């Protein structure tokens, strides 16, 4: 199999997070933003609490919170968290990972 064939089955994503994983937002929480062609994911974790994963499906516009379908209120919470990250983070604080996965969907 040539490389082009390998890559034809690829999926890819971008993950934006603090380069220093010990760094938190002023409220003590941490947020990781990620996106693929089909989804936008925001992972939010408060200290000593279980993390919450928001998944926004780009095509359908649906949102899922910890794998349960949510509503516009959840989308707004996703926006609020993302905006908080934008307000508090400097470009130099962040690192973007490009993930390529061979047919791993």
């Amino acid at each position, binding site marked *: *199999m*040539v*490389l*082009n064939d*390998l*890559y034809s089955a690829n*999926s890819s*994503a*971008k*993950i*934006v*997070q603090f*380069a*220093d*994983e*010990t760094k938190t937002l002023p409220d003590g929480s*941490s947020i*990781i*933003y*990620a*996106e*693929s062609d*089909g*989804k*936008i*994911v925001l*992972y939010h*974790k408060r200290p000593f609490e279980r*993390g919450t*994963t928001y*998944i*926004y499906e*780009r095509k359908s*516009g649906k949102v899922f919170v910890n794998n349960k379908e949510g509503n*516009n209120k959840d*989308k*707004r919470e*996703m*926006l609020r968290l*993302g*905006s908080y*990250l*934008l307000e508090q*983070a*400097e*470009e*130099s*604080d*962040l*690192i*973007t*990972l*490009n*993930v*390529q*996965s*061979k*047919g*791993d*969907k």
Partner: protein
Amino acid sequence: MSVSGVGGPIPSYNSNIGGVNSNSSNPIISKHLSSAEFQNVLTSLGIKPDNVVSIKQENGVQLTNPLQDLQVISITPQIAEVLKALGLGNVELAIVVSAEDEIKNIRKKLKEIKDSSLNKDMIDKLLKQLGISQTSEAFVFTDHTGGLLIVQAGLNEISEKIDEEDDDENEEK
């Protein structure tokens, strides 16, 4: 220059490669750094292992050391959760290479790897050299900045969708 991997907590460490003096507190990373395979990778990427004198984490890719600073990023449980949510799994290691005087070479090498007609055996060999499990069939690399713009664009997309739905609701009323 930075090399990053995915698979555990982002370490902060100072190590020497070339003489192979790996002081990483992360045993997984130490193993990679001290392995002959890892140095083979550096060589295959056009980096002389002897030139790699320090490994340290700084803010993102804003590395100022003109020498090749390697950054190894491991997959944290949080990143694993995100990857799972995106439908991507089995990512074990990311290799990122960036350096003021080497980045072009690294990009060229990565592009060559991606665009070339190398056969699977050669890719498998490369992945093996990179320390990636043959079954993982996934890897990560980055030298990208622009994280804020990426997040902003994504949030705008969601915001526009909410506005559309609000408009639809109002029309129905």
